[in-house]
């Protein structure tokens, strides 16, 4: 089966992002960019399905300006077969991303679409679910295990109380959680090979989608700072402080 995997270019997870002093936006000058960690897990899962003989082709898609081709190449180096970039400005809302992905789904007809559960910039956790609704596909979100079982997909999901398993008709959408797999590192020969793999570029118009905006970011600000407190000498002093100063235990 054909697997479509979506990847997003985001600030590297090691970077501590700050609001600009004028509050207009976050300061992304000269920060390191990378593939969203959850998307990397999605690519790894797709590649493993191919290695297991379940998937026949893995297509990596990204929505964004030309720079996101770097993340598509990363996915290709990890084992995806070919790439698709849908050329837009860098900040596109999840609903529009989902519509563009729906357009790619219509073109490619994959049996499975794997996405990260959220991106670590906007922390929205929306795109996979929205794609599911638009394409009328079932979804296995926050997945920690994915098993293809004939024409069904069994997905074990991380939920509030523990784990839940659902059975989905194919085609289906899966969004990854942290413990689905541990992504591999791309080898140098594979990075070189990835440069030669096919990468098609579409415009939103090619996919019949109008890029709209529903939300405006009015301002950004740093969160309320927490002041470091004191170091206590020993357990006795800690218990005393909690009882008599903070009064949180009795």
């Amino acid at each position, binding site marked *: 089966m054909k697997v479509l995997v979506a990847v997003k270019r985001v600030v590297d997870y090691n970077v501590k992002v700050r609001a600009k002093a004028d509050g207009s936006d976050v300061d992304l000058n000269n920060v390191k960019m990378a593939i969203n960690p959850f998307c990397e897990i999605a690519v790894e899962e797709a590649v493993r399905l191919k290695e297991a003989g379940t998937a026949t082709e893995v297509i990596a898609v990204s929505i964004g300006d030309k720079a996101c081709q770097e993340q598509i190449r990363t996915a290709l180096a990890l084992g995806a077969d070919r790439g698709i970039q849908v050329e837009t400005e860098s900040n596109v809302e999840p609903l529009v991303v989902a519509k563009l992905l729906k357009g790619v789904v219509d073109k490619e007809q994959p049996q499975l679409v794997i996405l990260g559960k959220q991106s670590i910039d906007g922390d*929205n956790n*929306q795109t996979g679910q929205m794609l599911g609704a638009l394409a009328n596909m079932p979804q296995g979100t926050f997945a920690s295990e994915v098993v293809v079982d004939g024409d069904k997909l069994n997905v074990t999901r991380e939920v509030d109380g523990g*784990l839940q398993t*659902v*059975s989905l008709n194919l085609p289906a959408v899966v969004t990854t959680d942290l413990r689905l797999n541990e992504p591999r590192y791309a080898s140098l020969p594979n990075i070189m090979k990835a440069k030669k793999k096919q990468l098609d570029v579409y415009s939103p118009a090619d996919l019949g989608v109008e890029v709209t905006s529903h*939300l405006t970011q009015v301002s950004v600000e740093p*969160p309320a700072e927490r002041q470091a*407190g*004191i170091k206590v000498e020993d357990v006795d002093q*800690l218990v005393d402080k909690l009882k008599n100063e903070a009064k949180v235990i009795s």
Partner: protein
Amino acid sequence: MSTLVIAEHDNGSLKGATLNAVTAAQAMGADVDILVAGANCGGAAEAAAAVAGVGKVLVADNAAYEHQLAENVSLLIAEVGAAYDNIVAPATANCKNAMPRVAALLDVAQISEITSVESADTFKRPIYAGNVIATVQSADAKKVITVRTTAFDAAAAEGGSASIEAVDAAHDAGISSFVGEEVAVSDRPELTSADIVISGGRGMQNGENFKMLEGIADKLGAAIGASRAAVDAGFVPNDMQVGQTGKIVAPDLYIAVGISGAIQHLAGMKDSKVIVAINKDEDAPIFQVADYGLVADLFDALPELESKI
């Protein structure tokens, strides 16, 4: 203005997260109704009707909604929600699963995990793991919103007398089914609503050592959590994870044991009222947010703490 709040429940009873969502909905200056979708969910509906300040409770009682499958529930919420200006849900695993489908069906944006209501169309929400707070304004006539429950007080669970109305709409998309679940059974309070939380990190060294937290948790009536490192290492199950992508908690007292304090963990607990850190590394970042830090070997400190509280 009218707002529909989506209830988080287990059919028999209403989950506390619903009460936080009701408070957020009331802050939008709207009349508030609650939708309870489930199967044999009369218990949850009655509890919802008792919540203070609620106009009416709509109950969709159908086998298709028993396990909150997003494919089915989203169709119901989109239909019932058509009559409302806002559709608001707590940011629980169930609602995070279903609500974006609702937004897409209605062709509107979702505003995820708001932490404050600035006006009828403007909200604050954390981005970049809580390192930045964004103020966003919605241009949509109908708004689909999830609420970070720790940012809003719980509405009073008693004192209301809402009417209960049955909703006939039966939506079974027929594309997904529930297979099973592994749910942790515990006598301790729920992690996200506990007054006291004690969490262990990589410093606990193994799952067996988490027992050292249990005695303290029992004495304090606390819930037990964990850092991502402890969950990834297999010490404890995923439902105990506190952090950016795990559970967000804000108890009166949070005790972090053997947790270094990665940004992703801090994002899940830094709104706690009082934070205690116990770590043998005095340079651990957790001490920068702790009200009381104890530099000590946890294997010495925990037994002593248990004996002295």
